[in-house]
């Protein structure tokens, strides 16, 4: 073997399994996305709500130890007044024991954590990362490079989706599990583990509910155009317009029927907004008060959206090769 040779040399090493190549695509996507300063800032900010929610868990647990749960709920009630599910927590505290109250309160906090700060951050994060994932490959014809290798369409899509899975996990699963651990550590009563053991599993389930439909939709948008800005615009427009439409329709029913009609209106128009549809299903995942018919409709809407998005995505990814 020469010490130095600029000529061509053969290669005869061991080739890795053909079925893990999607991980290479995922790694490339993660590295490229990580170069965005805004993304790194966003990931940092995503952990702050966990600290904020941790304070509430600390207050609740200390109040529970001193038997002042009612008082502390009365004091923090202002912050949760507009949340219908909070009434169920207060009722549980009044009628049930500490176990029920604790579970309800923790589940409510985790649901709120997913619903508000992380939900909004999810929209921004996916809007930053997803447009580049496939539309850029279509523009630069990189699919010819990918698909001339031992890679199937499914593996390509899985690799791209994993980029979003990883970043969404960094703002949902990891902070939520950290919040749970923080709550356990800050609680003076180790019985909290016995009362809330199912919550980490619910966190994982809620993350799946959040990540899979949004990833499918975002990649679908990215595959529909060669211009990343159009994919980004479509993503944000879907959430913002859905939100506005939901609020407008709910407000109209509220004006017509008053406060009694609010819950019905909210359930009726949930599927107009992906954000609210996700919240409705996550509500069920965390075992909070929910209307089964509305939850079923929301889950069905998410499932249909996911299946349609994946179908369009697979067709669009292979379409340049069919020419």
């Amino acid at each position, binding site marked *: 073997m020469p010490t130095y040779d*600029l*000529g*061509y*040399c*053969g*290669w*005869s*090493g*061991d*080739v*890795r*399994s*053909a079925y893990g*190549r999607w991980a*290479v*695509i995922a790694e*490339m996507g993660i590295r*490229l996305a990580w*170069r965005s300063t805004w993304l790194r800032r966003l990931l940092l900010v995503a952990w702050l709500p966990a600290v904020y929610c941790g304070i509430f868990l600390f207050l609740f647990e200390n109040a529970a130890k001193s038997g002042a749960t009612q008082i502390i709920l009365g004091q923090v009630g202002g912050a949760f007044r507009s949340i219908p599910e909070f009434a169920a927590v207060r009722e549980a505290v009044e009628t049930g024991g500490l176990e029920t109250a604790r579970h309800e309160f923790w589940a409510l906090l985790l649901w709120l954590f997913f619903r508000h700060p992380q939900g909004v951050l999810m929209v921004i994060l996916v809007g930053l990362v997803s447009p*580049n994932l496939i539309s*850029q*490959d279509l*523009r*630069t*014809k*990189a*699919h*010819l*490079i*990918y*698909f*001339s*290798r*031992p*890679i*199937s369409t499914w593996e390509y899509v899985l690799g791209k989706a994993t980029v979003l899975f990883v970043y969404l996990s960094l703002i949902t699963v990891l902070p939520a599990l950290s919040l749970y651990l923080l709550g356990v550590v800050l609680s003076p009563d180790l019985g909290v583990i016995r009362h809330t053991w199912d919550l980490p599993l619910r966190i994982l389930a809620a993350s799946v509910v959040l990540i899979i439909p949004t990833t499918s939709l975002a990649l679908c948008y990215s595959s529909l155009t060669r211009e990343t800005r159009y994919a980004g615009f479509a993503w944000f427009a879907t959430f913002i317009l859905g939100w506005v439409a939901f609020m407008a329709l709910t407000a109209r029913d509220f004006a017509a029927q008053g406060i009694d009609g609010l819950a019905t209106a909210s359930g009726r128009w949930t599927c107009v907004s992906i954000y609210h549809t996700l919240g409705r299903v996550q509500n069920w995942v965390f075992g909070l008060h929910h209307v089964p018919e509305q939850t079923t409709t929301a889950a069905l809407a998410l499932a249909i959206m996911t299946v349609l998005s994946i179908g369009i995505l697979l067709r669009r990814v292979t379409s340049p*090769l*069919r020419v």
Partner: protein
Amino acid sequence: MNESNAPHLIELHNVSKFFGAFQALADVSLTVPPSITGLLGPNGAGKSTLIKVMLGLVAHSSGTGHILGFPLGTAFREIRGRVGYMPEDDCYIAGLSGVEMVRSVARLSGLPSVEALRRAHEILDFCGTEQERYRPVETYSTGMRQKLKFAQAIVHDPPLLILDEPTSGLDPRERQIMLARIRTLAEKHGKTVLISTHILPDVRATCDHVVIMANGQMRLSERLDVLNRPESPSYFVRVMGSSTAFVERIRGEGHAVVIEPDGGVTVRGLDENSCGTIWRWAEESNVGIRLMRPAVNSLEQIFVDVVRGARHADV
């Protein structure tokens, strides 16, 4: 059949491909021996579709075949893992530097991470890519992107290379170097190369075998030296000054003479031992000979004839 005892690395039998009602490939039968083969054809002849069928990028409608001994259409992982494909299109993975892109492609072909980086540098050295390998590929010129595409095609050391317009966009010097690299890979490292190109001088300079397609059909498949050989032994002569007297002298001997568009003279009916005779005729005609060589057929003319359908008996 495995690739070690396969007589031909590419074997296709009656392969057809329909896009809806349009037939892109019509009963294409083809064998590619271990050498450099030029795949020629006008635009829309079906060359790119044929390449995509061979790589499993599009499914063929009918027919059978083997690539490197693996069945066509069902063993795409095995085939793509052993084929180096250089697309004609300007394609790259945005955001990566040159060396990152070649390394990533090597990893997609199964090379371990560190080895892929080492191999990427090794191949970029071979392709003459200097420090620009650390620049983002978006900033590359057309010629640099051609070299990058070539590098990603050979980084995993495939036994079969399919190169689509490999010299497109290269300046004359880089074009010669690229062709020399291809010949090196074929002659010194045993690669089988299939070159799809419109540039006939590249084919004449590089290829051992020529395949011509038109309208989705295989029109001709033959060794280049056979195609080059005229129907009767001939000499090509270029003289200094006017060739009129020289031509008249040869015609006086009863030989057919063709005056080529570049002013050269092709003399038919002379074998390889006739050099002395030609020198004598030149002396008697009082002209100096600038160039003399055995005549070869014009590949351009063969191409035009085959595409027009005038010549397809060799298939």
